[in-house]
């Protein structure tokens, strides 16, 4: 029984990672940028949701939508101001900018509201179901379903819609995409808008589920989500989902065995092992450069 419980614990944890990883992987998939600021967009989303619920008394879903909208705009602004200039620069320059930006956002938020944590109001009722001694909370079921739905939605957008095709074209060759009549800037903005809205949503869900939010809350989940995305094969949307779940379950199992202090180490060891056998992640095609 305990083990089934642990598995369920792992899946709930993993679906949070997956939720953040989806946006991460999407942005990466299109512009090959490790958007370290994704974790900060997630944090902003959590705070917007918080102020909306606690400050203005909005309900959960209006607050969720508001957070997603604000984050979408925020993400687009980040791209516009910081990343667009670096389209033709090295990827590592863009990465450093992303790191700088992520610090900047953290500390601007701290400057205005301090570093102390905030407790999320109970905006979404939580019931715990007891199935044969195994507890499942309604929130974790909700989060898992939301991430699965979003994964399917994203996969659909990227592979079946026109904007999705444009995104993929842009991801392979921007100039060639222009020559197809694709507006590269709009496409990338759309990518950031969607990815950031997802991060915002994840922020609100995280807040409700874990209660505690603070300005540095994006760092660790951001990193974990990135690991999850890589684990699944970065850029591949179902990969983010699976990577998130694998990571969540691995971490939980390690804790369940009593090695909670080694949990993160175990997560990274699994990551490295998987990469050694599948250098492009679980779903990644090992597309070797054609010589």
């Amino acid at each position, binding site marked *: 029984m*305990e083990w089934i*419980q*642990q598995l369920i*614990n*792992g899946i*709930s*944890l993993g679906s*949070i990672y997956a939720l953040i990883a989806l946006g991460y992987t999407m942005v990466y998939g299109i512009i090959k940028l490790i958007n370290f600021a994704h974790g900060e967009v997630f944090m902003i989303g959590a705070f917007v949701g918080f102020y909306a619920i606690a400050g203005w008394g909005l309900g959960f879903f209006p607050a969720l939508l508001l957070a997603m909208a604000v984050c979408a705009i925020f993400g687009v602004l980040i791209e516009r101001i910081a990343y667009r200039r670096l389209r033709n620069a090295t990827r590592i320059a863009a990465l450093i900018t992303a790191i700088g930006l992520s610090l900047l956002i953290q*500390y601007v938020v*701290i*400057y*205005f*509201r*301090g*570093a*102390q*944590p*905030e*407790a999320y109001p*109970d905006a979404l009722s*939580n019931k*715990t179901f*007891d199935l044969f001694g195994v*507890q499942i*909370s309604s929130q974790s079921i909700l989060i898992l379903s939301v991430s699965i739905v979003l994964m399917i939605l994203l996969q659909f957008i990227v592979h079946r819609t026109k904007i999705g095709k444009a995104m993929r074209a842009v991801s392979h060759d921007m100039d060639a995409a222009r020559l197809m009549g694709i507006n590269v800037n709009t496409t990338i903005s759309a990518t950031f808008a969607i990815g950031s809205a997802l991060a915002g949503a994840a922020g609100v869900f*995280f807040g409700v589920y*874990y*209660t*505690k939010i*603070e300005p*540095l809350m994006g760092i*660790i*989940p951001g990193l974990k989500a990135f690991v999850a995305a890589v684990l699944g094969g970065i850029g591949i949307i179902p990969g983010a989902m699976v990577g998130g779940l694998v990571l969540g379950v691995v*971490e*939980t*199992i390690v*804790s*369940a065995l*009593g090695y*909670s*202090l080694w*949990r*993160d180490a175990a997560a990274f060891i699994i990551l490295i092992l998987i990469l050694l056998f599948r250098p492009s992640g679980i779903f990644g095609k090992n597309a070797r450069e054609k010589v």
Partner: protein
Amino acid sequence: GCGGEKAGTEGSKDSGGGGDTIKIGANLELSGAVASYGQGIAEGIDLAVEEINNSGGVDGKKIEIIKVDNKSDAAEATNAAIKLTNQDKVTAIIGAATSGNSVAQAQIANDNKTILLSPSGTSPNVTVGTNGKVNEFVFRTSFIDPFQGTVAANFAAGDLNIKNAAIYADNASDYAKGLAASFKETFEAAGGKVVSEESYVAKDTDFRSTLTRIKSANPEFIFIPGYYEEVGLIIKQAREMGITVPFMGADGWDSPILVDLAGAEALNNTFLTNHYSAQDPDETIQKFVTSFSKKYSGKSPDAFNALGYDSVYFLVDAMKRAGDTSDATKIKDALAETKDLSLVTGVVTVDEFHNPIKSATVLEHKDGKQVFKSKVNP
């Protein structure tokens, strides 16, 4: 924000020289992983300094706080301490929030004959070096870990009559580890049994898997030394999982946010040891609580706020008794002789290891309020 209160301190900077101001450094975790602790202390310091300066300062001299950010990093803390001692030539440094960052400065304080007063560094190592010698110039405002652990264990075994306890400690903090160790020792000495020992790491958010383990060990009581940020989540998740036994912790729990994080209901049947209680009707405490929430737009002070605040008064008291505001050697002697000094976090007497002997308070949470349970003297 904390931009407003700077004006007061900077005003005196202009009047220049070491002559008519007392320079005190604040070497704190204002950014980085534990920025919230450092910032909490800074708020307390600012309030105290404002009060003292408004009422004429110390011996007619105003206090000037030179705040430096150590980014929650020991190396930066060292750098900052060197800067404060060598460049700013402060008489004393208040800091840091964590034991590690305090230890990082201890040697520098001794070498430069500058007072180091750690507001919340609770590890015994802060004031006593590895060689077992007391760091001459280093003091602290908080009591040390073993004391609180002992109090908690006695309370569990005695007042609650617990036989089987579990310990769930924050492994990233020596504070929590110290508490866990002294709790275990005392508890077992009192005939109890520790049936499960688990750890987590600060900044974790999901504790369900370990709680599942603890639950299956069937303890009657769970001791959780750690900070409120995680403890709130642990209690919330534990109650959700149907763990109904009492929990207990220490001063790291003390924050109004704990109630918000865990939820008032989940917090019922939990206890903590603390330096003080904001609910304590004691006059000093209530005066502090009122002026704190006045200055910080209604915020209720937590332990870090209180310790930061007390650190200033602790230091100022010694300066007054030393009759000198700039001679660190005299001040450290005065600090070492502190006796029955009444502060917000308790009545302080400094022992031979430069640790304050203070009473601890045991509090119980009832419907989101801390209720005074008992006071334990060392």
